[in-house]
């Protein structure tokens, strides 16, 4: 997927949820990274915030894409859901209060991890039978958050099965 296709995919994602009431979509913040010695694009980051009309909770979707041998791959993602305070700038605030978050990076050598209920609670991929956290996508995360808001537990919504 190139930069243009990525932007189109965000539009498609928003269209997918257009019939879901109560979602308030922010503008995606994109930071393209151009080769300073040429015209190539080497990657980009995206930060996209979705809030809810009925409560002070928000979703923050973040992805980093980079060029790898002529292709672009998602090198990191962090999908967060939790409460916020009105004075927060949601695109840049450090999310310390967590309901659920999937962090797509393996910096402990234990695979990606999911925060279950709190920032301190991490369940690593090596503890999980399902799901495969590396395959988590934005739309799937939003759907799972909606399930939580409709009353499911985090384990049920994300189909968490421990080994």
């Amino acid at each position, binding site marked *: 997927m190139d930069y243009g296709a990525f932007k189109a995919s965000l539009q498609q994602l*928003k269209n997918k949820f257009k019939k879901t009431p109560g979602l308030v979509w922010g503008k995606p913040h994109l930071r393209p*990274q151009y080769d300073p*010695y040429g015209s190539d694009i080497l990657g980009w*980051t995206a930060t996209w915030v979705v809030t809810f009309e009925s409560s002070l909770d928000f979703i923050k979707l973040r992805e980093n894409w980079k060029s790898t041998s002529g292709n672009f791959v998602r090198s990191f993602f*962090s999908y967060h859901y939790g409460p916020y305070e009105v004075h927060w700038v949601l695109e840049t605030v450090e999310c310390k209060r967590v309901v659920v978050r999937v962090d797509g990076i393996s910096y402990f050598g234990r695979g990606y991890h999911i925060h279950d209920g709190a920032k301190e609670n991490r369940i690593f991929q090596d503890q999980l039978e399902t799901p495969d956290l590396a395959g988590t996508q934005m739309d799937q995360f939003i759907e799972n958050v909606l399930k939580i808001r409709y009353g499911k537990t985090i384990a049920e919504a994300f189909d968490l099965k421990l080994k």
Partner: protein
Amino acid sequence: MAKAKASVPVEELMEFVEQPLTYGEARRGVWKFERGHKISSAELFSGKCGSFHPDVNADVLFEWKSYYDFVCEVDRRVASALSERRKLEEVTYSSKPSSETRHQTPEQSKQASMSYAA
């Protein structure tokens, strides 16, 4: 009787906030994060931190990783371009057809120029 036209739903066009990341900004960001967390980016992102738990906030990690990937890619490209340039500079001038031109090491070039001067 005039027929009412079927209304065609028009998708709302999405707006983006786009701000390119510069190499200088990314480099400064990497330096700041490494200094603040007392760990090199290479070590942190190698996934080999072992028992050391840096406990970096995911938002910080996100910025850090994106800056680091960008800096690495630009540095790799610059190194590759410099290497290509060095190879080109090692090709000495020859009156022979281009098919017979060969690459010379800097040492060979030096010897060749010395013998010419002699």
